[in-house]
């Protein structure tokens, strides 16, 4: 049954991948990245069970935590164009 | 003092002299005195080496060992001593000459003006110091060449000589001098690296050693087509021997100050070349080996062609120094020819020609230099009638020319004699004809100058205004030749004659080389 789930996850990743490839905007790709990230988290969890070594969930945990940082960076990049700014007025000049 | 220490000194003294010159570079008198003392000391040293060698001693010394099995070694053997003797003696004379010459030589007007406005004379002094400095270094290199104990050492000093003479050739730093420097370095370096070095390494690969040995190190080890090819590589690779087609550097080098042309390009550098050719034939191949394989026949004809062609070219040259240079090219090939004859007489003749030609040619150059600084004339056609103004100079020129042509009562007669005999012994009648023809040619192109000098009529008055101070003798542009220079000219001219009467030391040395 884990195998079935794995396949389902892979298929849905492939679909998300299609979105990443098709675009059309960069945000679609970010979305796909984000989505694939979540799916990877789950996939890793499932794979642990599939292999009979479920004790490597730390990896999934790490992903869950870190993937988020990437998206925040995207937002910051788009909104501010500068990852170091403290508040909006720092980059008011553009 | 042992003889091997003397060998070391023969290198060290000129080098030390150079250092002293460098220290005294702002004091002309002291500087030149140092040059003279050094030259005298060197000659004494070489003389003592000669005395040792003439009784059969062969002092030797290893300086360093850059490559395992191939040391930089010095060894005094007769041929080298002959060469060293000539060079060191002539260095004294040349130093005397150049003291007069360099002081008397007018600078190019534009430079003189600039320097006058700047109030600097220092620069000129510095350059003169540089002149003496490199001169001394060049002599040291010549000594190294002369006393080289193996082929590698010979090559090393040969290259050092090339490099140390380069600043002398380009002394004036004019565009012409730069161009000449390029030709000079280009030809000498290219030939020496591409052909000579190849030949040396090849020799090493075949023989496993590079030491000069009586009877040659290659004999019996090499065979077939290798021998003529290798010999050819050597002859052409020793570019300083100026065998055509690698002779271009020599006329080009004539842009140098005349003492440089005189000592280096009539004596030291070119003689180093032909000396090296002789050394290689005698001690690397062995004359018997060459004679047996017939490897040198084609090179004889190359040398013969050079003799004739260079003489013909000399005819066409109006510039005095260039004409002398082509004459040198031609005469050098006599020595090469002597070596290629590969018999006792040829080698003796070649060796003696090194000495005889040296004295003759240096006289000619000295005269040319004096003419230049006294009258500012460089072309043969401008010299008509000058003989009456400068009788000593033109007289000396006459004697020198006789020696070059090979007519008694000058030393040149002996070497030509031996070379002719050698050709006959080698069964090359054609070469005898070549020798005759070239003597005739040189007679014509050299004798033209003193004869015109004494008997020609100046076409028109010199265009320069009277200089004022020194013109009590003759009108116009004439400066009295410096006394130091005149002394040098007289010395060499007399020597030419003496060598006819007393060629014994050189002959003895050469028979030690070539066998009785």
């Amino acid at each position, binding site marked *: 049954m884990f195998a079935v789930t794995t396949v389902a996850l892979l298929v849905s990743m492939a679909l998300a991948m299609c979105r990443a490839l098709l675009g059309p905007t960069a945000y679609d790709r970010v979305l796909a990245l984000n989505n694939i990230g979540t799916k990877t988290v789950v996939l890793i969890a499932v794979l642990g069970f599939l292999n009979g070594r479920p004790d490597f969930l730390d990896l999934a945990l790490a992903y869950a935590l870190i993937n988020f940082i990437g998206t925040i960076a995207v937002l910051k990049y788009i909104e501010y164009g500068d990852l170091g700014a403290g508040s909006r007025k720092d980059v008011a000049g553009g | 003092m042992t003889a091997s220490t003397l060998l070391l000194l023969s290198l060290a003294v000129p080098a030390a002299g150079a250092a002293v010159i460098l220290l005294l570079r702002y004091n002309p008198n002291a500087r030149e005195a140092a040059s003279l003392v050094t030259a005298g000391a060197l000659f004494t040293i070489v003389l003592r080496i000669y005395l040792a060698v003439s009784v059969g001693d062969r002092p030797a010394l290893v300086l*360093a*060992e*850059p*490559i*395992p099995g191939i040391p*930089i070694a010095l060894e005094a053997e007769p041929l080298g001593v002959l060469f060293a003797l000539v060079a060191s003696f002539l260095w004294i004379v040349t130093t005397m000459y150049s003291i007069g010459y360099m002081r008397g030589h007018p600078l190019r007007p534009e430079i003189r003006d600039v320097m006058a406005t700047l109030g600097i004379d220092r620069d000129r002094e510095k350059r003169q110091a540089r002149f003496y400095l490199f001169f001394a270094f060049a002599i040291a290199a010549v000594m190294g060449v002369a006393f080289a104990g193996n082929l590698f050492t010979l090559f090393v000093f040969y290259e050092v000589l090339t490099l140390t003479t380069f600043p002398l050739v380009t002394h004036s730093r004019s565009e012409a001098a730069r161009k000449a420097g390029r030709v000079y370095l*280009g030809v000498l370096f290219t030939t020496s*690296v591409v052909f000579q070095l*190849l030949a040396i*390494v090849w020799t090493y690969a075949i023989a496993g050693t590079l030491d000069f040995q009586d009877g040659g190190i290659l004999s019996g080890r090499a065979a077939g087509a290798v021998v003529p090819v290798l010999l050819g590589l050597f002859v052409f690779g020793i570019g300083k021997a100026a065998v055509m087609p690698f002779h271009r550097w020599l006329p080009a080098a004539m842009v140098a100050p005349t003492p440089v042309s005189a000592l280096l390009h009539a004596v030291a550098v070119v003689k180093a070349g032909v000396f090296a050719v002789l050394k290689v034939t005698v001690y690397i191949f062995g004359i018997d080996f060459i004679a047996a394989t017939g490897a040198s026949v084609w090179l004889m004809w190359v040398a013969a062609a050079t003799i004739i062609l260079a003489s013909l070219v000399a005819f066409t040259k109006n510039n005095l120094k260039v004409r002398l240079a082509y004459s040198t090219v031609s005469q050098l090939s006599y020595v090469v020819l002597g070596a290629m004859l590969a018999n006792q007489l040829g080698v003796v003749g070649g060796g003696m020609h090194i000495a005889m030609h040296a004295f003759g040619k240096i006289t000619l150059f000295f005269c040319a230099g004096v003419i230049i600084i006294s009258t500012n004339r460089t072309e043969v056609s401008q010299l008509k009638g000058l003989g009456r103004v400068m009788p000593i100079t033109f007289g000396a020129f006459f004697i020198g020319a006789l020696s070059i042509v090979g007519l008694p009562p000058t030393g040149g007669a002996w070497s030509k004699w031996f070379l002719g005999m050698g050709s006959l012994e080698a069964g090359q009648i054609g070469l005898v004809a070549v020798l005759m023809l070239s003597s005739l040619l040189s007679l014509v192109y050299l004798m033209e100058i003193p004869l015109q000098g004494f008997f020609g009529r100046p076409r028109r008055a010199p265009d320069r205004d009277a200089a004022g101070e020194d013109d009590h003798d003759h009108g116009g542009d004439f400066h009295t030749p410096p006394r130091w220079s005149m002394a040098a000219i007289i010395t060499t001219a007399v020597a030419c004659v003496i060598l006819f009467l007393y060629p014994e030391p050189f002959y003895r040395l050469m028979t030690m080389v070539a066998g009785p």
Partner: protein
Amino acid sequence: MIAEHLPILQVVLPLLAAPVCIFLRNPRAAGALAVLTSWSALGIALSLLREVMSTGVVSYAIGDWAPPIGIEYRVDIVNAWVLVIVATIGAVVTPYAITSVESEVDRKRIPLFYAAYLLCLTGLLGITITGDVFNVFVFLEISSLSAYALIAMGQRRRALTAAFRYLIMGSVGATFIVIGIGLLYVMTGTLNMADLAALLPEVWDSRTVKVAYGFLGVGMCLKLALFPLHLWLPNAYAFAPSAVTAFMASTATKVAVYMLLRLFLSIFGRHFSFEVMGLDLILLPLALVAIVSMSLVAIFQVDVKRLLAYSSVAQIGYMILGLSFASVTGLTATLLHLFNHALMKGALFMALGCVVYRIGSVHIDAMVGLGKRMPYTMAAFVVGGLSLVGVPLTVGFVSKWYLILGALEKGGLWMGVAAIVLVTSVMALVYVWRVVEVAYLRDFAGDERVREAPWSLLVPTWALVLANLYFGIDAVRISAVARGAAEALMIGIGS
């Protein structure tokens, strides 16, 4: 007790000094530390060489794990020799850098500069000394990364693009090397060099090993800038700060050449290299083309640093040429030229550094008449240049001698190879002499205030120049070492 730990200290000492340099924050102090470190590294390298010469191979098991399990440092005569080369150059260039860098790099960055410099030294020493192929990669990256940064420190903006190109090509090279190592590993299951050498003969026939060979070769050739893969080198050397150029030009490519020798001869063995893979036949044309074409290109350069950089590519061709002779003499020539080229290029680039220090440019037009203004600097340049040309009494001659001898020993058509070597020396004369002529035979027209470079630059420069002369006159010892190393390489590591 310290004596037995010398192999590791050789690498760890500069490694430890690098972060300390950053902590010091004071340019002078950092410089002093760098000097101290590089000198001790030289001392260690020399004593290692002596030890190896007297007792044979020194093996040091890091972490107490016996070799195939852990990482081994393995010093034999070959890499002891290369260590000495690298350490020597390091020891000479570091004091030079103190003054040179002050004029070319922001004061604030100087401690960082030394840190990067020491890391580069660490990397190079580490590559050389190690007996583990993957460790090679790691240290290769240490040296490369710091080298990229160092090169980018050049004053002109082209230094940046040069560094970037170097980064890309260097990384590709490194990745190729990783691929090669991986393929070797998959066939043998080991990463230790000696172990590999012992295990490889069993799998020689496999295509995998051959491809691994190819990848390692291409990767290394990228790093050592063999002819078609040299594109990164000229600009990198031309635009880097002088001290960096002097250091890199005399060490980085040398170490890569060493690795190539080590891989091809020690690990794969000469039988495999020459008889199975035909290495000599592949390298020979490349080396010849490199020598001739790069010498030609060098002749037409107007930036003297770049001129020398192209000449470096040509000189690397000589080293590879020696390898392609597949004989002890050829290898001796290669190993000698490693040392000699380091000495002469070091001296030349340092002399140019002096020029940069005073006039800020090494464009050939800027050097007009410098012979008078900076006599010692230019004299150093002349001697270095003569050495590059291969004039006797300089080191350049010694290696050329062996190269020609190696070619002639093979006889036949190899005569032509010897002739090419000689003709290209003449080409070297042409490009060196262009500079000499400009510097000496023309009148100075620049700023009247230009004067001789300071002693702190001249002394290291002349140290190398004198070394050029000394080892050109007395090359017996280094030739003996090189020959010993060459023989060791030809025998191979395993047996």
